[in-house]
């Protein structure tokens, strides 16, 4: 299973790219923009959000 993480600002770009590359059903998690240039504590908060979403997807896929 492949899950791709992007920031909210780039969600539409990623969805279109995935579609044009033949992966219209790519699993995508969006975290609040930005992730570049932020402090470690801030990125950890966003990573926690993403991790929770990943677990939900795995749980859902397992059903």
């Amino acid at each position, binding site marked *: 299973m492949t899950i791709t993480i992007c920031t909210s600002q*780039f969600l539409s770009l990623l969805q*279109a790219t995935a579609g044009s590359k033949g992966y219209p059903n790519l699993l995508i998690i969006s975290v609040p923009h930005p992730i570049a240039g932020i402090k470690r504590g801030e990125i950890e908060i966003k990573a926690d959000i993403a991790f929770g979403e990943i677990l939900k997807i795995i749980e859902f896929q397992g059903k």
Partner: protein
Amino acid sequence: MGKEGCNSLRLISERIEFNDNLEEINEFFYRNGWSDGLPIIVPTEERVERMLSGTRRDPQDSLGTVPPGGGEATIEKIAINAVMAGCLPEYMPLIITAIEAMLDERFNLHWIQATTHPVAPLIIVNGPIRNELQINSGHNVFGQGSRANATIGRAIRLILLNIGGGVPGKLDMATHGQPGKYSFCIGENEESSPWEPLHVERGFSKSSSTITVCGVEGPHNMNDHCSDDGEGILTTFAGTMATQGNNNIISQRGEPLLIIGPEHAGIISKSGFSKSDVKHFLHAKARVQKRQFSKRHQEDQFSQYSDDSSIPLTPREEDIMVIVSGGSGKHSLFLPSFGLTTSVTKDIKD
């Protein structure tokens, strides 16, 4: 909308019917996101057929898909956008070659289209076709006034928009963009250059006509009316090029472009500098002291360098691109590149 009025069997694009109201048609194109914001020439079937007379290629030949949207770049679709941009049919082979070059994987068009960086594909034209098509390589080379430069560059942008899907804020995520995203096409001023032109440097014969595509920022001027020798002028260039915020120095990749005005080039050459000498000099002198970068840059980008290092613009001197273009005057230009891109040169065929 409808298929009525479709006379050409070799054109397969959808026909849309309008009254002869130019304003209404332009409004329709604008509202559908099919223009750069400027009025377009309406791509009627007759005009598209006339545009196709400029190439021997079959209208349904495809050059591949244009990222990030993935539309198919058929000769017909290219011709439609060339009409919209105001091109003449004889520009078609050049435009087709430019699209082929941009679809070369080394160019990395996907990232160039989608990035937040203000990069645009610059088309540099070399060889006899410059004079045949009256492509400006002299005064005001990046400015207004030349139909070929303006409309070829505009056609490229419309193709990237309408076939490649590079809609601002959707698939084109440029933070600011730059004026070159309307049109960005120049000739090298080979007649005023003391050195071999770009295409000869890259292995083509002088009599070949070529285009080179490179993903670069807008031009930044380098004024030196004082220096009377090559070392002096190149020292001015080095100081202007050695900046902390450009992608080449930060990523230590790519090919920054130096466009030397003919007067500067003449002085530099008379001082004994070949083109490779120019690159060697600038690689040695266009550097930024590591300690001048922000603390985070020092830690994240340049940890492998000692604290008293000077960081070069690019790791390899041969990656600094040098051409001669423009008219009289003691000005030259520096265009940092996107970094994650390699320029591509191709000869222009029918």
